[in-house]
């Protein structure tokens, strides 16, 4: 089928490492097709990862209540960053202006910048791309973040502040 090809005979190293720039940069259609197949395989693996990730590596859930700090440590309008045992996620405890308490993940749901609480406007701001969250519910008010900030329920026992997984609404 290919007997009337008039390409010169080349040794294997000359074929694999061509000298001319045109030949070196040439991607044959065969190579491109196989590359497409490889990318397709990568997509399938990616879909598999998305599907199986929660089963294999479940997100960390807090057992019971986790101690954070004392009431006197955080003034009104102030925040207190904390982590829980067993996970590296950074959380933020907020003492709102009206005296109530909230706890949110400090990772912005857009591209994971650290958000911070602005007591003057009583809102949570992500400075990276000007995203704003409501301090009372964590929902998105403005900007690129797609989802509300993940939150934890705050339980006050006397002078101690505890956080626990929120009851699913």
């Amino acid at each position, binding site marked *: *089928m*290919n007997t009337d*090809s008039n*390409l010169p005979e*080349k*040794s*294997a*190293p000359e*074929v*694999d490492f061509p000298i001319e720039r045109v030949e070196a940069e040439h991607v044959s*259609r*065969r190579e*491109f*097709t*196989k590359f*497409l*197949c490889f*990318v*397709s*395989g990568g*997509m*399938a693996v*990616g*879909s*598999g990862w*998305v*599907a*199986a990730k*929660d089963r*294999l*590596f479940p997100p960390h859930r807090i057992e019971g209540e986790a101690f954070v700090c004392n009431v006197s440590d955080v003034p009104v309008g102030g925040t207190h960053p904390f982590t829980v045992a*067993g996970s590296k996620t950074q959380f933020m405890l907020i003492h709102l202006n009206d005296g109530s308490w909230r706890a949110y993940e400090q990772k912005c749901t857009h591209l994971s910048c650290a958000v911070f609480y602005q007591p003057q406007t009583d809102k949570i701001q992500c400075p990276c791309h000007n995203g704003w969250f409501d301090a009372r519910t964590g929902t998105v008010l403005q900007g690129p973040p*797609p*989802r509300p900030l993940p939150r934890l329920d705050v339980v006050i026992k006397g002078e101690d502040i505890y956080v626990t997984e929120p009851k699913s609404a």
Partner: protein
Amino acid sequence: MSNFREAQRQAHPTKTNTLLLGIMCVLILIVIMQIWLLTAALNESLDGHNAVKWPAFWVSLLLFGSGAALLRYLPAPIRLPAREVVREAFPHAALAWRTLGISAVSLALAFAVWFMWSAIPLRLKDAGFVFTRQQLFWLTATPVLLGSFLRIPYGLIVSTFGSRRSYAFVTLLLLLPCIATGFAVKNPTTPYWVLLACAALTGIAGANFATSMGVINLWFPKQAQGTALGINGLGNFGVTIAQFTIPLVIGFSLLGASGGTSSKPARSIHIENAAFIWIPFILTCSAAIWFGTKDNTAPPKTLASQLVAGKRLHTWVLSFLYFLTFGCFVAMGASLPLIIKEVFALAPGGAPKPLLFAPWAAAIATVMRPVGGWLADKFGAGLITSISIGTMAVGGFSLTGFLQPDQFTGFFIVILVICAAAGLGNGSVFKIIPLVLSKEAGAAIGIVSCLGALGGFVPPLLLGWTMDHLGGPAWAYTGMALFALVCLFVNIWFYHRRSSPTHC
């Protein structure tokens, strides 16, 4: 008269062009759809709606499969493939396959006998012996040492004395360690050096591997040797069989009045059964070899011509590669229960049972060995070895990320992947030996398997050392991964590069 192909080509001169263009367009569409499925599933599952992700994965997998199937219709390339398949005559096919079956079973038996000294020291305390941990460790290690060194002479005798005679003889020889061990462990007052001598004697069972592979090498032509040697490698299942049966047989008496220890009235264990149980099988296998196979009619080679194998560079290169692939497999089998117990003792939900999970690692490596041999026959041993060693390197590096007590699932999956890759590499490296060292294949198999078995001795030592001095096995796994990288470069240089004179 024009033939059909010629007429087709004249009717549609650019048929292959059109075909290739069509395949490319279909693949582009497939990739676009997969991108859409991936982003949709990701978005939905981040929002908490988990209904889409599994159907998306199955459809994506289906699309990938159909795309890969399309590659079958790629037109042939213009230049000739560089690798020529060596085809030899295969006169005695039926007898050869029968020999393979008998040989694999006998090899499994030999591995089971070899392994018994890995199981016996665990129960010596229950049988009334008092030894330190160091002494018990040496009891498990001595058979490995001797089994490695004896592989060199055991590989040589096949070409000198004939396949049937040598293999039947070495199988019958297994009676010696079984009887000696059985009587030695029955009596709790046996001194330590006697037990050590029995363990050393058991080392000869490990050397049967070289004889068995030599027999197969004699009977099969080059183009089928990868597959045949790989199927023979299924004899490694002897280790798995022993791991499951020895704990069972220790529990009850096989020999009636002559067996058993009487020190514990409530529950007596009959540890000597671990040795005696193999005796009927040894006799059966020796008879099967003697009556079921024939001596190969090829002219016997002199000892001197075989020993030349030690001078060849490729013997040592292949030993280097086999040190990694086989050593990894043995190390995973021997030290995995200990690692599971030590590292994951604090896992939430209780430590996973080591004996439930550990045999699977060795089993999967054994199963993948013939697969590796067959793939090496089809696609070239250099490529398959590179794939397997590369996977082992990646696996070794990623293993260090799964050593927290609550990460056992991920750890075990990576271990299985590494062992599967090691099995694949075992099969393909053994295919390279007769291709590159055709005249001294028997002796070369002996030397390569000897050094490879030593590779099974080093990793447990390394793991023990890092556990004691560095607190965890992470550095041992990293060291193994770095060694695998070196092996990868060696393999690519000698056997994978198309311009290498020993391209496989």
